[in-house]
């Protein structure tokens, strides 16, 4: 693209207004939004239709989707490979316990726990902000185990033996299951919306650039540090929410469980298999995770071995995961966060599409390839690893 641009610039001495129209998607996204609304509505109605076994399984699926989406924002976009997100899972879970002990309803405590987790995320980011790759991974892991050591040494939280939420849950079992399910669905929708808006907004362009090359993004003037901090805190809030949901759905909180590094393993495996660097990937990965879990659940920990081996193979041979394969093959984007440039000659009547500058639009090349619309932002260095 740059060579075409520079050659064209050489032919046309003065820079004229670009003859392109910019859209976020190749097709209209109205039907995608409609399907999404219907899907969420159906999922919300589900507790009236199915047994509680199904909804409690779905709660676990939603929790993994939340965690994986958060890890994907960190590693897939912000270039921060964290192996320490279990620290925030544990903080979220124990925060619910603390609020419940002070008389707060657990479902009111859920958003408060997310807030606490986000607040804890700020000093942690300050500690980790200059580290990258393996340093960041292991330092975040160490921070998580320090958080675990601090929290599990507090005797009012049951020290290492754990603590039950049962005294604070004044619901019938059915109602508790249903409300937990709705809470999990709400947090999931909020997490996906947050990730989507983050990537659609001004910071999204910086994040996509960081995904492809952090140093280049910095030298192009992107405010990389600020966006990375935002993503880190958002991921802390999301993982805190997942931990709080975990506490409520399991009714029992134990440090060696909620602070376990296997949460990081789960979110990493799900994200890699589904497709790192896309919003759709972690969702699909979490579904695959539970399909394999349910299939091999009777054979001990084999499901986890199989998932780990698949994740390693995908990381090496299909780096954008299953969704990457599907999206490239059929050119689908459910969550369009890139940009498409359309030459004016092909422009459809202006009424159907709002023209005008989009915030954060990249400066398009003076002449876009004439024949076909060229997918710009989305395709640039799309092999995000």
């Amino acid at each position, binding site marked *: 693209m740059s060579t075409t641009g520079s050659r064209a610039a050489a032919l046309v001495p003065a820079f004229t207004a670009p003859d392109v129209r910019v859209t976020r998607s190749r097709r209209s996204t109205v039907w995608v939004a409609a399907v999404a609304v219907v899907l969420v509505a159906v999922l919300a109605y589900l507790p009236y239709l199915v047994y509680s076994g199904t909804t409690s399984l779905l709660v676990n699926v939603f929790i993994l989707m939340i965690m994986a989406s958060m890890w994907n924002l960190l590693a897939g976009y912000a270039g921060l490979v964290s192996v320490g997100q279990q620290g925030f899972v544990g903080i979220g879970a124990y925060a619910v316990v603390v609020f419940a002990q002070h008389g707060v309803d657990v479902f009111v405590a859920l958003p408060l726990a997310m807030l606490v987790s986000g607040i804890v995320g700020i000093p942690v980011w300050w500690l980790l902000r200059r580290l990258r790759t393996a340093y960041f991974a292991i330092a975040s892991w160490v921070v998580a185990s320090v958080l675990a050591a601090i929290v599990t040494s507090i005797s009012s939280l049951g020290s290492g033996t754990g603590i039950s939420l049962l005294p604070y849950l004044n619901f019938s079992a059915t109602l508790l299951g249903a409300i937990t399910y709705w809470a999990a669905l709400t947090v999931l929708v909020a997490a996906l919306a947050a990730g989507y808006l983050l990537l659609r907004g001004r910071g999204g362009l910086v994040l996509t650039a960081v995904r492809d090359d952090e140093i280049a993004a910095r030298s192009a003037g992107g405010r990389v540090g600020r966006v990375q901090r935002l993503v880190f805190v958002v991921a802390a809030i999301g993982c805190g929410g997942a931990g709080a949901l975990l506490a409520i759905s399991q009714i029992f909180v134990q440090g060696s469980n909620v602070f376990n590094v296997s949460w990081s393993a789960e979110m990493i*495996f799900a994200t890699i298999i589904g497709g790192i660097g896309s919003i759709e990937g972690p969702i699909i990965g979490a579904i695959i995770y539970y399909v394999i879990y349910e299939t091999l659940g009777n054979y001990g920990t084999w499901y986890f071995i199989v998932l780990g081996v698949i994740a390693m193979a995908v990381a090496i041979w299909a780096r954008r995961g299953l969704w990457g394969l599907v999206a490239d093959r059929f050119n689908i984007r459910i969550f369009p966060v890139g940009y498409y440039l359309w030459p004016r000659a092909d422009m459809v009547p202006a009424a159907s599409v709002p023209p005008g500058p989009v915030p954060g639009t990249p400066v398009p090349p003076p002449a876009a390839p004439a024949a076909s619309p060229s997918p710009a932002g989305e395709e640039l260095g799309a092999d995000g*690893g």
Partner: protein
Amino acid sequence: MIWVNDIIQGILLGGLYALFACGLSLMFGVMKVINLAHGDLAVVAAYVALGVIALTHIPGVWSFVLVVPIMAVGGYFLQRTLIQASLERGTITTLLVTFGLSIVIETVLLQFLSANSHGIPDGSFGTASFSIGSQISIGWLDLIILVVAVTVLLVLQFYLSRSRNGRLIRAVADDREAAQLAGADYRHIFGIAAAIALGTVALAGVAYFGMYSQFDPTIGTGQLLLYAFEVVVIGGLGSLWGTLAGGIVLGVVQQIGAQIGGAAHPDYQFLAGQLVFLAVLVVLPQGLTGIRRTA
């Protein structure tokens, strides 16, 4: 006097930590790979040692004679297959693949060998000690392990600076393309470096689980990898003597933490090391001996 004893025990432990970490440091220095499965490979070495002892009935402390070459050969093949494939695809892929490997090793060991703790039998020699004054008691085996650790670091230093393969390893670490133009097969050299790394980690694993600690499948990810990385960071990457210094700092700090925590807070031992590690990352990111700019 009790503090002097802690410092001496910390130094003895630190030699072993340095032995743990030198493989991690070597692999990072040569291949720019941080092997997140490093700790689990030490646990694998310990299980191999149990198998070797059961089959050959050699005394526990001598099992390393067979375990080290077995793990070294394994390391060569691991490097030539999985790690080579992932490092050709970038740093993040290497991290994710070695993390996956770590989790898979741990889960496989749990699935087949249960979560039971084991120890490598070290016989009566393991508890023999001599005393200085009334409060300081030094185990003979601890002292021998420190001497072995320092000797291994010396040999490794000598090997890297003088031998033909050592020169090749340094050449490939400095400039892979230039070394390849000069005729070095960098993949083979990487394999040799990984073999050395796994050989040292096997030696450290046998010594550590014979002397200081029981082992089970989960100890590799939770503790050993973090110890090794903490040693490397405290000491500064790419320097073998920095690794020794880092190991001793971590060992002494952990002993002091254990002394402060006492029986009521056994986890203060790990917490003390981790806090020092985080402090070094913030204040002195290049470590005690760091002169190289690290990524």
